[in-house]
């Protein structure tokens, strides 16, 4: 009796026939689990003296150009760039994309009275995620998106590198005083 009771307990545990000792039914056990689709990114690091990473979290960061314009003539300092590096993991086929909210660094709060001033500074971003390069070029149009090889057909892990370069203006004109800003969105996962 003691032996029989133990066998019955084992059969229940597998969810199979209640009386395994007396039944020849196959002992088939379905074990399964679902790994969620996940893309995660770390806080970025910056590499260049032209700009400073003034804040950085996993979801948002702020980069400030150190000498954006000349204090002598308010013209854009030429050849400003920086590189952002983010550690990332994506465990499924996904998209790698960038989007510029303003379509350039813009000052939208100042109204010019007369003369010619610059109120929008375009920039270029070269992005690399594994073997997948993309690029973004702003032209002043809001919500400008990147182009290139942003469809990643499998899981990937490593560094996302974004090289940001301000475009030198065709004609040197003074910039209006104040803050020029844009929000550059980096997304791994669903297409932007």
């Amino acid at each position, binding site marked *: 009796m003691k032996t029989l009771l133990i066998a019955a307990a084992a059969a229940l545990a597998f969810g199979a026939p209640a009386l395994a000792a007396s039944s020849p039914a196959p002992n088939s056990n379905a074990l399964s689990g679902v790994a969620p689709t996940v893309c995660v990114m770390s806080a970025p690091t910056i590499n260049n003296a032209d700009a400073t990473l003034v804040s950085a979290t996993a979801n948002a*960061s702020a980069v400030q150009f150190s000498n954006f314009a000349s204090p002598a003539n308010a013209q854009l300092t030429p050849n400003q760039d920086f590189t952002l590096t983010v550690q990332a993991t994506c465990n499924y086929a996904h998209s790698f994309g960038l989007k510029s909210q303003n379509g350039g660094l813009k000052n939208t709060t100042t109204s010019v009275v*007369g003369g010619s001033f610059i109120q929008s500074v375009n920039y270029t971003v070269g992005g690399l995620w594994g073997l997948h390069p993309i690029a973004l070029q702003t032209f002043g149009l809001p919500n400008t998106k990147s182009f290139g090889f942003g469809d990643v057909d499998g899981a990937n892990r490593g560094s996302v590198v974004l090289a940001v370069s301000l475009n030198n203006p065709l004609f040197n004109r003074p910039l209006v005083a104040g803050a020029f800003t844009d929000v550059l969105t980096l997304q*791994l996962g669903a297409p932007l």
Partner: protein
Amino acid sequence: MKRLALTTGLIVAAACPAWADDSAIKEQTLGGVVPNVCRLGAVSQSSGDNASFAVGGASSTVTVTTFADPNTAQARAASINLGIQGVCNRSHTIRLLSERGGLTLDQPPAGATPGFARRVDYTAVAGWPGAQTTLTTAGAAGAAATVDVSGPSSGDLLLSIAIPSGSTALVAGDYRDRLTVELLANM
């Protein structure tokens, strides 16, 4: 039944992944600050009558050719129009400032000079896109005229200086004033 339930669950998960939109999004705020810059540059003469202009360093000199009539010693009319390259990349104020409040004698005589004038007043007008201000001297040292400009502006600031003819003989001597033109960024 338990096995069947598990199988069904797997099919559902594969057909419609519950976390398909689990994207990682990072927003980078990019920013740069442009300092306040107000500058006046090269000065050029566009026209003049009985007056000439000489470029200096930070200052220039306007000389009245015939300041007083040689027969009556009364001031002669003179005028000059100048253009000054300027830029101010935020709201600002244009100010004209007269050091002496008119053209006055460098070395005035100690005593009274009844019947003679010791000062010649003038009018200066500064024109700038969207703004104009006029200063008319009347003897008050440090007299100033200002006008606010609501936003950035650049181009030629047009400065017109006019000296009217006088009706009183002037005391002999050198007459001078310093007229300062300023673009002041409003903070």
